[in-house]
């Protein structure tokens, strides 16, 4: 579980996060949603420590991340996996080397065990016969799946995904969403996904945090989203005709 208590973050005079408090639960896909510029990427990057917060607390299973020194943070980071928006695969490494990299750096496995783990992770995300291809030689969907394989290589407790299905076609996007949800259940991870894709929200939104103008505007599940009176959330989620019709049907 990851807990945020009164998190605030500013850049110069611009306050981006205002007093955010929330629990992200283990074994669930927790979604952070909001419009572009609402602060959701800053929130995600603050949770993982890429941005230092101004005030507040962030707990990883009761461990105070904000009070940790660099060494402790480094240790806890080995319990994290992250899937970046663009995949962030290392260009100079093949698919296999990308997944092998965290194992090479941080595990004490033998070479055979490492390769077994690499093949397990690649199989788990349905990547076959592409071990020696480079990131530029595979499709966007495959890059995302390799990024997921790399993120789970060290068997992390916490998985973070920044808009994992951006730039993907709807079918591949659903495949990626379902894959993340399956992996979350399978390994009982605390998964936080940053998205503004409404298909993802309806597909895998077991817990949803809605951020609006840097404030926590709403918190609930994908089922509860249909009954909310929160105007900002309604404007965001049911912006299209299609979703308005879906809302009417659900009500």
């Amino acid at each position, binding site marked *: 579980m990851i807990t945020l208590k009164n998190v605030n973050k500013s850049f110069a005079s611009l306050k981006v996060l205002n007093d955010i408090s929330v629990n992200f639960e283990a074994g669930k896909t927790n979604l952070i949603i909001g419009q572009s510029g609402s602060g959701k990427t800053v929130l995600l990057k603050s949770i*993982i420590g*890429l941005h230092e917060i101004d005030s507040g607390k962030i707990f990883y299973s009761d461990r105070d991340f904000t009070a940790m020194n660099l060494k402790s*943070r*480094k*240790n806890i*980071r*080995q319990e*994290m996996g*992250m899937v*970046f*928006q*663009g995949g*962030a*695969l*290392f*260009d100079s490494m093949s698919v296999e080397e990308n997944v092998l*990299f*965290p194992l*090479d*750096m*941080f595990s004490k496995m033998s070479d055979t065990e490492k390769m077994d783990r690499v093949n397990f992770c690649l199989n788990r995300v349905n990547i076959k016969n592409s071990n020696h291809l480079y990131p530029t030689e595979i499709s966007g969907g495959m890059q995302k799946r390799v990024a997921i394989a790399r993120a789970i290589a060290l068997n992390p407790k916490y998985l*973070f995904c920044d808009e994992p299905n951006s730039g993907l076609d709807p079918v591949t996007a659903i495949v990626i969403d379902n894959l993340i949800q399956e992996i979350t259940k399978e390994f009982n991870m605390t998964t936080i996904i940053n998205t503004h894709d409404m298909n993802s929200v309806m597909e895998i939104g077991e817990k949803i945090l809605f951020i609006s103008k840097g404030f926590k505007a709403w918190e609930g599940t994908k089922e509860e989203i249909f009954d909310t009176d929160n105007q900002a959330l309604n404007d965001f989620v049911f912006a299209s005709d299609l979703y308005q019709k879906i809302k009417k049907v659900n009500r």
Partner: protein
Amino acid sequence: MGLFEHVGKFSKFLVLVVSKPEKGKTFFSHIIKEIHKLGINSIGIVVIISLFMGAVIALQTAYNMQNPLLPDYLVGYTTRESMLLEFSSTIVGLILAGKVGSNIASEIGSMRVTEQIDALEIMGVNSANFLVLPKIIAAVFINPFLYILSVFVGILGGLFAGYLTGTVAVSDFIYGVQFGFIPYYISYSLIKTCVFAFIITAIPSYYGYFVKGGALEVGKASTKAVVNSSILILLSNLILTQILLK
């Protein structure tokens, strides 16, 4: 950003760079890759530049010293001294600042804008140390060899130019190359080469590492890296020459 801010930020960056590597085996294999990328892949350009520089120095010396009081072997002597003291270290350093420097700045800058550096940080890897230290060590190790190669090729270029144009006899040129040799000059130039190798790798790494934005900013960072590395090479050349040759 002002000069002092850059100096402060660069100093903090160097503290991150010069820390204990995560894994010795991985670190060593990175150094070998960088030696290949920064050093071995630069042999071609170093040979071409040195060959022509040596040839031109020999011809210019020969044509400007057509005086019966000046012996012919001075052509060989001047070619050796020019290559040894200045051209093979400073000029090759400036050329490599362009070739290697722009390569490093754009490589690290691209990694920054595509979030690959963030990915390293999330894994708990000291990205500055992981990406930059192998480049610095590789360049400081391999550039002295490039310097020695450059001196030899430059002298050979001078020899061939003198022989092919008939401006100086081979025996006179070889005598000149051996005349009045001061071994300390090699130490002096090797020290300069190592300092330049550090500048050529550390400055572009700094500009690439802190790039913000997209492809346009990576290009700008690359240009800044080459310009500032070149200026620093010239400045340090002046300082080192004053310190080491006074």
